Every structure is written in structure tokens, then in C-alpha cells.
């Protein structure tokens, strides 16, 4: 059985509730839905953030996320997955990314959502530029994000595979 899986990269805002309904409507086997939404913060420490601008690699961004969605559906008994990632200029309070996972039970839905977000942060070709006090700087990758993604790697698996 093919698991319904949707990956979209778009400039426009998304509607988490509508996307969730699309996955669960008309089915009675779904016992758990986990949704994660990443939102643009308005400050980093004491410094206020005017906006984030996300650049991506069209084609590869979709392909890379689709690869990880396929892996998630292999690893966990999922009934549906939707991942949407925005690009372009995003102001504080606006959504950046969403992941919805549906399963019969909560463990698979939680684990798959976390797996997808951890991989998205370190492997999906997106780059954030932050605007503070009129200056734009590229956000540095975090070692904690790499460590979070490594947790899911199978032993001996090559990080670049």
C-alpha cells in the first residue's frame, strides 16, 4: 500500500489545519496525528529580528525531502505524511515549515515527525539569512542540529549518502 505523501516547497503561507484534514478525512484507521510547525521568531537573545529570507535549491530541495519522507514511511507504520517548506522573505510570527505525520498510534507519528525535522534542518538545501537592524547575515549551521540528525543514522551509514 502506498502511503499518501506530499512534499511542497512554496513561497505562500500554508494552512496546517487544512493540510491535516486532507490526510485524515474519510479514514478511521488513523489514531494519531502529529503536527510540527516551525515559526519565525522575532528575537535572538537581545537582538530583534526584522525578517528571515530563505534561499533554496529548486529541484534538490523537493528531491531531498522526498527521499527522507520515503525513508520515514519505510521505518515507521505511517498512514500519511505532508511536509511543506516555505522560501522567500518571512517575518516574525509567520510559519516557515510544517510536518504532519499520521499513524495508528502515537509513537510512530511522533518519531517520524522528529526524524523528518531533524533531517530537514541538516540535509534539505535551504539557507536562512537573518535581517537585524538593517543588516543581513547568513545563519550559521548549528552543531546541535547535526547531532540531532545523527541520532537517526543507522550504524556505519555514511553521512553523505
Amino acid at each position, binding site marked *: 500500500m502506498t502511503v499518501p505523501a506530499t512534499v511542497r516547497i512554496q513561497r505562500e503561507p500554508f494552512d496546517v489545519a487544512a493540510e491535516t484534514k486532507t490526510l485524515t478525512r474519510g479514514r478511521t484507521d488513523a489514531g494519531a496525528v502529529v503536527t510540527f510547525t516551525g515559526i519565525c521568531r522575532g528575537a535572538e537573545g537581545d537582538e530583534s529580528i526584522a525578517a528571515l529570507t530563505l534561499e533554496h*535549491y529548486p529541484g534538490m530541495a523537493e528531491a531531498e525531502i522526498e527521499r527522507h519522507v520515503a525513508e520515514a514511511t519505510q521505518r515507521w507504520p505511517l498512514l500519511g505524511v505532508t511536509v511543506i517548506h516555505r522560501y522567500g522573505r518571512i517575518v516574525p510570527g509567520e510559519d516557515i*515549515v510544517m510536518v504532519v505525520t499520521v499513524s495508528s498510534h502515537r509513537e510512530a507519528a511522533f518519531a517520524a515527525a522528529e526524524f523528518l525535522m531533524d533531517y530537514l*534542518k*541538516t*540535509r534539505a*538545501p*535551504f*539557507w536562512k*539569512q537573518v535581517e537585524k537592524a538593517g543588516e543581513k547575515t547568513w545563519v550559521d549551521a548549528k552543531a546541535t542540529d547535526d547531532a540531532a540528525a545523527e541520532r537517526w543514522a543507522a550504524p556505519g551509514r555514511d553521512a553523505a549518502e
Partner: protein
Amino acid sequence: MKLRYFAWVRERIGKPEEDVELPAGIATVAELITWLSSRGEEYAYAFENPKVIRAAIDRTHVRPNTAIKGAGEIAFFPPMTGG
């Protein structure tokens, strides 16, 4: 061969993509980076710390020692910061 650059790699080089004719003897991603670095100060600046540069061949992540033979499009970019 088509090369694409993203984020600060793109900004430092000053263009998002270009077509290049590679000289003979360049077999791997790392060798391509070394050759690009010699093409001018903007390239040297973009690739000044090759360890942080990530690469993709035909939209799949690759490592520095990956062979570039047969590649249609090679992209260079900083570590990813999406999500």
C-alpha cells in the same frame, strides 16, 4: 559542465551559476574546488575553507572524494540551515 552556487558561496563568487570547461585531470569534487579556487580572488574567498563547503552532484549530496565523471550539474553551498 554546469556549476551552481547558493547562499554565501553564490554571493562571494558573484553569480548563481555558470558553465565551465574543465581542464583534464580533475577527477573529484575536492579537485574541482581546488581548481575553482585558482580562478580568481572571488573563488578563493568562496572556497577559503573547503571543509565547510558542501556539494551536490545532480541534486544529490556527495562527499569531497566523489568522482565527478558523468555529472551534469554540480552545486556548491554552505552547511544547510533550513527548517
